[in-house]
């Protein structure tokens, strides 16, 4: 598909940016349905997005700079060169959650309630992001042997110039991004089902849908990380995997604490804000 969709004069319009924009738009539609079913106001979501998109972008860029500091330490002007690519999904995600936290605190809304409303859209956007990685051929899985049979199984053909150095002889690679997108779709469907249950029967504690979804999404990323090509040979985990493992453990811990805080006075007082 190429990197540039089209150019208006000298200005390039990029496929990845278009995919992210479509993801946000469809996320807005999903959230609109969610908000409508719960009798809330959509203007809240617009407010969150107004702050969330720039802050998410900023934190994503910051995350990229911090994680790949050796690329930027010698030429600081590169930091501002967004057109050279590079945004960290972890940074963007953290930035967005921060905005939701600050907004709900300022407007005296329930943080966990609004996270539950937003989470199907977040998972959907993450799924489209992975599909974007797939078509841009930036996430490369382990190579497949040259003589694979014609059995219509899922593979990814990576064009010659995009192949990582050392692997020019291989044509087909494991489509890791596609696997992740499919798994995230399953989580997305689960989050929608849980949302319906929460609305209809009102028996799911607020925040649980968010914690469960993010727990599984992070776990998926952790397991798919083993199929990435850049994985070091000596079985150490790379940064993305460690972050996701910690993230999913954190979700699990918060979920347990919130579930059992009534029973446990110590935790209840210690984590009073986890209402």
């Amino acid at each position, binding site marked *: 598909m*190429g*990197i540039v969709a089209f150019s208006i004069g000298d200005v390039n319009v*990029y496929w990845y*940016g278009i995919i992210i924009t479509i993801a946000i738009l469809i996320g807005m539609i999903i959230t609109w349905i969610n908000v409508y079913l719960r009798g809330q106001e959509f203007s809240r979501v617009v407010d969150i997005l107004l702050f969330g998109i720039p802050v998410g972008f900023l934190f994503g860029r910051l995350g990229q700079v911090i994680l790949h500091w050796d690329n930027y330490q010698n030429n600081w002007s590169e930091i501002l060169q967004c057109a050279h690519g590079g945004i960290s999904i972890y940074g963007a995600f953290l930035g967005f959650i921060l905005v939701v936290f600050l907004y709900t605190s300022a407007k005296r809304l329930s943080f966990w309630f609004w996270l539950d409303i937003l989470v199907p859209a977040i998972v959907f956007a993450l799924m489209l992001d992975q599909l974007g990685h797939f*078509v841009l051929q930036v996430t490369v899985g382990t190579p497949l042997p040259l003589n694979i049979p014609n*059995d*219509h199984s899922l593979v990814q053909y990576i*064009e*010659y110039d995009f192949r990582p150095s050392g692997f020019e002889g291989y044509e087909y690679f494991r*489509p890791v991004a596609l696997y992740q997108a499919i798994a995230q779709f399953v989580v997305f469907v689960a989050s929608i089902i849980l949302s319906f249950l929460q609305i209809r029967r009102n028996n799911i504690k607020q925040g649980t849908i968010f914690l469960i979804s993010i727990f599984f999404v992070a776990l998926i990323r952790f397991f798919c990380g083993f199929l990435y090509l850049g994985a070091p040979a000596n079985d150490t985990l790379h940064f993305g995997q460690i972050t996701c493992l910690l993230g999913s453990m954190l979700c699990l811990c918060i979920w347990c604490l919130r579930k059992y805080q009534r029973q446990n006075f110590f935790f209840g007082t210690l984590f009073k804000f986890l209402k």
Partner: protein
Amino acid sequence: MKFSYLYKKIILVMLLVLIPLLLPGPKILDQKLVAESASDTSVVILNYHKVDDMKISLSVAPVDFEKQMAYLKEQGYTTITADQLLDNLENGTELPEKPILITFDDGYEDNYKNAYPVLKKYGFKATIFVITDFLDRYPNYITWAQAQELQQNGISIESHTVQHKSLTELNDEEVRSELINSKKAIDEHLGKDTRYIAYPTGTYNLHIAQMVKDAGYRAAFTVKYGNVDKASNIYALERVPIFHTENTFKSFYERLHYIPIFEHLGWIKS
């Protein structure tokens, strides 16, 4: 209250419009690839074998072939030569609007009898990759005399090795002999400098590609399904095979138009 909500939506739309301009990709991208992608070279190379009424998949019926060529003409496609393609990939020379490269593999006699008149009728150029040992020897392959006529009328004759053996199964000496002798045969019979080769059965590896380069070829074609753009390996150019199916024109149409999607799914020849 309502006013400021409208302003907010407008600002939101503006933010959403900005994103495609600012995000080229999740990882740092090689600027060369970005620039090449912006210039948008993307060429379809059609790959035919036989053009007759045998009901096998390798054999497109003449009636269907005529229909496909008529479609290309009507849709404004311009046939190019392999030289033009090479010039574009190496030097960036511009190609005409809607370029397409028509190729035939093996050099069957029906290419001359059935396909050549149709190509001539529409003023199309094409390239035939011939198996040099089979010409003048077996009855259903073209003769050198016919090859000469084709070469002089816009149908370029290029190499498909000497005996159509899969190059990955031969040792280095044999590969070199196949490459060099086929070039020599065509050069001598047709008085030209053969620059292009198509791998028999499409099999190759990077070592063979290097030998192809050493033998004096300037580019090589595979049977890998895809389109050719700047990110392609010049010694492993992708092509779109056209087969006889239950609805040959529909398959042709789909393959002509939907390559990028199929390519990204790594669609192995169906």
